[in-house]
């Protein structure tokens, strides 16, 4: 699939068929996430995949942002075990950006393999860490729900180029 085609055709999918996600597709998607850039190539990211339906139902209760029942959930975590000051490291913007880069690769790879996905940010961090058995220093940052789309929603409105794109300097149409 062409990269630009994938970028423009991808949608946030929240409603899935019960069809399971194959391990080949999962490996491709996680490899794509690993391939994303990270500051100093630190790669302080860990991906936990949950596919057991009972565990997904329980996970959904700790993540109010999870609306439907996906076939799989990927929990993207920051691994700060080797960082000297864990609390300080968690607020390092380059780490958050590296999570965002991995997320976008993951979403595009899911789309390219015929799956749908959507990031979920509403969850209880500590509750999730307890449920997943995360050791101290591994922080869940985002969940991604994944599965075969039940339907493809229409594209939401995006801002036009004229509103957000400037060349050389910021200038609005009335000359200010």
């Amino acid at each position, binding site marked *: 699939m062409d990269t630009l085609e994938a970028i423009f055709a991808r949608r*946030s999918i929240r*409603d899935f068929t019960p069809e399971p996600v194959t391990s080949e597709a999962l490996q491709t998607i996680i490899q794509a996430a690993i391939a994303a850039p990270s500051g100093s190539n630190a790669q302080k990211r860990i991906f936990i995949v949950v596919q057991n339906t009972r565990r997904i139902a329980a996970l*959904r*209760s*700790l993540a*109010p942002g999870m609306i*439907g029942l996906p076939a799989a959930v990927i929990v993207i975590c920051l691994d700060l075990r080797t960082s000297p000051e864990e609390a300080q490291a968690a607020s390092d913007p380059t780490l958050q950006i590296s999570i965002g880069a991995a997320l976008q690769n993951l979403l595009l790879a899911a789309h390219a393999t015929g799956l749908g996905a959507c990031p979920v940010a*509403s969850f209880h961090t500590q*509750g999730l860490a307890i449920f997943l058995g995360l050791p101290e220093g591994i922080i869940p940052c985002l969940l991604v729900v994944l599965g075969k789309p039940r339907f493809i929603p229409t594209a939401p409105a995006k801002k036009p180029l004229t509103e957000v794109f400037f060349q050389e300097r910021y200038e609005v149409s009335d000359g200010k």
Partner: protein
Amino acid sequence: MESKHIKNQEEDLFNLITYMITSARGLYDEPPDYGSFRLLDATGRLLEIMSHSGELSPFLARLKQEIDAEREGSMDEARQRQNLERWVIELAQELRRRVETEQATGDRNR
């Protein structure tokens, strides 16, 4: 078979309780209009559990279908507000019908 069903339902309800408490905590940090959506989502989850344990009445089955569509669509406050307004009116009408039917049956049985 029956005890397995009760166990499954208890697990489903346990998940719902966890969801509601997690949502209540999360809402301190989330946009105010999420509160309305979380309650709507909780209603959808409850209807889901009820549908596992037996057939929903035609009224609740339709409500579940409509709430599921609202939950799964993109967030649109105006549409959600309009739907909630309509559902409250329909629920009030259904509530009245149920109470009056029950009363009429009770009166006949006296």
